[in-house]
């Protein structure tokens, strides 16, 4: 319920007349889409579909006059302005013959003078190069491409502004993995792009560090579909196309970069997609199909105040370990004040409790662990000292219903798992995307939602493999044990810096926001 309230608070409906109603900029039967605002704000480039062909056009914002820059047979797609406004880069293909007679090329990048002139080829090959974007300094063009991939997908590539051999970003690619429509932060330090890991997931927004693109952060969750990101000129927001369960259609969302909080603009019935910012950030242009086909519309950017992101629900804490090195003790700092038993030769220091062979901490018959079929959460900061090749239990909830009622553990390959169970007692688990690295401190949030979904978040990023149907009813626990299996063995070789158990699931933003802010500011 709390999550729903938070969601309702975040999805702010702006009446179309709150600032000003969306104003149509173009009209006609074909679709006018993929708008891109010129750096001086006077022109908007877009693609216009007509009779199976797609032209590249520019709209004079003041006069409303539309000029075709690249017309005739073929598809001219995804225009992007150079920072100096002199050039528009786009993807283009034209097929004059059947495939058996010989296809000349795939979709390649071309550049055309923004005032009109002869297009110039930037890339070649029977591949798909698309959704180009300039770096803020104009030194390079980054784009999506199938170039060099062995399975269906879209990788990010980089070329000099005058063309040349494309260089591929070193990103994890799999079947149907896509990094599409990159856009740079105004200072050039970060890239946002639409990301999809595979066929079963939704598009989400992902941040990549421009200098080290493998360093990434998931800006939005796959619970909602989000794509077509555009960074605001002040760097604070990202506008995108989005759909959340319950929305009437595709809509324009504004996402706060440092918190991941988002709100949907109320543009009226119909799909609103692919927003682009004016240079001052005071207006957004987007494509909208209220009249049947898509036309370009303009809207004033609404005030976007999100407030602080939600925090973990502190009053739901039922166990909170506190190390007391002075007393060589560990206590439960929650209101429940459960009694904690130490076993073995634990190292209790300022930064947490370090476990060796045979060591464990136990809360015997702890209060507050009767979650019923509702939500609960295990939040822990841990460092794995050694990947032993054996299963290592970080924490286990021991219940009369099932002695491994829930578990947070590493498997023999070093993947971190969190599992709950269904009503039959069957294991329902979430898993880390990668094996953990020894020696690295990690913030873990493992939870079961009241829907029965099991999730695992590492450093604020939800791991892809989740579980559903975990609806086991939890009565009072026999014990909660940290550092080994409920009856011993499967010892944890590492340090638990902090560990809390909550009788509630936190909002996504509460988990994500602190880490996201750190990522953006780093």
């Amino acid at each position: 319920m709390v999550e729903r309230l938070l969601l309702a608070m975040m999805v702010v409906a702006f009446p179309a007349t709150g600032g000003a109603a969306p104003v149509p900029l173009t009209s006609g039967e074909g679709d006018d889409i993929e708008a891109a605002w010129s750096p001086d704000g006077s022109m908007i480039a877009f693609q216009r579909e007509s009779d199976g062909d797609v032209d590249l056009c520019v709209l004079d914002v003041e006069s409303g006059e539309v000029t075709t820059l690249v017309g005739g047979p073929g598809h001219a797609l995804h225009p992007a302005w150079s920072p100096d406004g002199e050039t528009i880069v786009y993807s283009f293909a034209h097929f004059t013959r059947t495939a058996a007679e010989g296809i000349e090329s795939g979709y390649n990048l071309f550049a055309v003078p923004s005032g009109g002139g002869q297009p110039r080829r930037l890339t070649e090959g029977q591949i798909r190069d698309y959704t180009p974007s300039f770096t803020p300094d104009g030194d390079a063009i980054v784009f999506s491409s199938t170039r060099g991939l062995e399975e269906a997908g879209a990788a990010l590539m980089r070329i000099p502004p005058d063309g040349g051999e494309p260089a591929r970003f070193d990103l994890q690619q799999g079947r149907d993995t896509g990094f599409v429509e990159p856009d740079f932060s105004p200072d050039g330090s970060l890239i946002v792009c639409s990301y999809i890991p595979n066929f079963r997931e939704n598009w989400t927004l992902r941040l990549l560090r421009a200098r080290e693109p493998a360093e990434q952060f998931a800006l939005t969750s796959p619970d909602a579909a989000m794509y077509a990101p555009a960074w605001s000129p002040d760097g604070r927001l990202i506008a995108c196309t989005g759909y959340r369960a319950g929305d009437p259609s595709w809509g324009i969302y504004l996402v706060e970069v440092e918190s991941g909080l988002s709100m949907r603009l109320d543009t009226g019935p119909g799909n609103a997609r692919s927003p682009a910012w004016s240079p001052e950030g005071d207006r957004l242009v987007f494509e909208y199909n209220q009249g049947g086909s898509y036309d370009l519309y303009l809207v004033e950017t609404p005030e976007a105040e999100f407030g602080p992101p939600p925090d973990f629900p502190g009053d739901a804490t039922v166990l909170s370990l506190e190390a007391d090195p002075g007393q060589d003790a560990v206590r439960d700092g929650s209101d429940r004040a459960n009694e904690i038993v130490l076993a073995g030769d634990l190292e209790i220091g300022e930064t947490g409790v370090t476990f060796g062979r045979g060591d464990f901490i136990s809360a015997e018959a702890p209060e507050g662990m009767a979650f019923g079929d509702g939500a609960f959460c295990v939040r822990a900061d841990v460092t794995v000292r050694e990947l032993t090749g054996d299963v290592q239990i970080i924490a286990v909830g021991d219940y009369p219903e099932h002695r491994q009622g829930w578990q947070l553990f590493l498997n023999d390959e070093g993947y971190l798992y969190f599992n709950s169970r269904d009503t039959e007692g069957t294991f329902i688990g979430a898993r880390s995307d990668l094996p953990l690295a020894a020696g690295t401190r990690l913030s873990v949030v493992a939870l079961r939602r009241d829907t029965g979904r099991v999730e695992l978040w590492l450093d604020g990023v939800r791991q892809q493999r989740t579980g559903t149907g975990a609806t086991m009813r939890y009565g009072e626990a026999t014990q909660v044990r940290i550092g080994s299996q409920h009856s011993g063995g499967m010892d944890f070789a590492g340090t638990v810096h902090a560990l809390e158990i909550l009788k509630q699931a936190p909002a996504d933003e509460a988990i994500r926001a602190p880490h996201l802010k750190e990522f953006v500011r780093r």
Partner: protein
Amino acid sequence: MKPARQFIVTAVIVLLASVCPAQEEGRRFEIAAWVDHFDFVGVRGDGELLFDTETVEGCRGVLDHVQETGATTILWRNCAGGNMRYQSAVESGHHPEILDKRRICDIRPLYGWVRYAEAEPDVVRSMMAECEDRGLAPGIHWPFEETHGAIWTISRFNLEHPQLWSRTADGHPWWGRCSLAHDETVAHKMELVDELIDRGMETLFIDFYRSGGWGPSYEFTPPVIAAWRERFGEEPPAQTTDRWAEHVAGYVTDWVRNLRERLDASGREIDLMVGIPNITADSDWAMVSRGADWRTWVDEGLIDTLVISFMPWDEELPFESTREIGRGIMDAVDGRCRVLWPVRAYDFGGYGMPSYAEATGLSQEEIAERLMLMAWEEGADGISLECVDYGNYREKTRRRMSELANGRCRWVRGER
């Protein structure tokens, strides 16, 4: 006319009448070939394109190859996932996928699909007519999917209607397909059916194996949940149960009813054929995994033909167990619709000819012969061939099947 002559003429007429109907009553043993002409583009090792499937002439070459199997019904594939291979007024075409950046691109060169969506030639219309001219029954192979398990085939309708998307039990929207519980989804599909009727289709074959990964576990949509609450007075289960699958199957059955009505409304006799995978007489697999309640469809007379896509035969007794399962299905159907048995070149999900070969050591043509004869001996109405892509059925296999189709298995057993 004198009485004697009148008697003779009458006798001749009666005699002819008694002979001719017997000939017409004999039903051809149906050889229904599923044809994905796109797969005939296939690039050989030397890079040469085998067929120009973007031209009518090239597609005639495809048909020539398919006819080598003795096929009597041609089930031409109308789509790639949710993208039509003709110029549809209501759905996206088999264009290059980057025309919508939400699709993830295939990596194959742009061969064989560039012109499928152009007005002329309309490959589907042309090939329906070509089949007719050749005395073949022209039909459409329409996977029950919208996606074909790859992002590049997601249709424009799906992409543009997120509010109709399927959802997992925990409310997670999935863009793979739009829910049949929404009237808009069904209406869209009926518009596509109209386009196929207009193109001359005489059989509509719905393939429930190709579901794009959809199943009742993706049907936790608001209208389905609301109906569940009203029907059972309780919250829906946290994950798919048999009862949930049966509930969802009601929507699929409603859709099949819609199909039946739509085909009948055309004023033509258009067969509705459904293909059920992993089928036995008493298994609920199709219901649980696909929401396909084929027994109800047979009971209500909604379908003309039940295609056994594949049966879960026992690898210890491949042919014996196949015969037993097939016989059980025939008994369950009890003549209320036609039944086609599988002679399946593909092995997706197992149980195709490659699996028989592994279990028996027999060659493809030997397996095909045994399966074809088995179907005929058991009184089946024919066989289905999944899929007659280029070379899937080897030359010897095609020749042997054609010999049987025009010889011993020409007519349905016991009907001539």
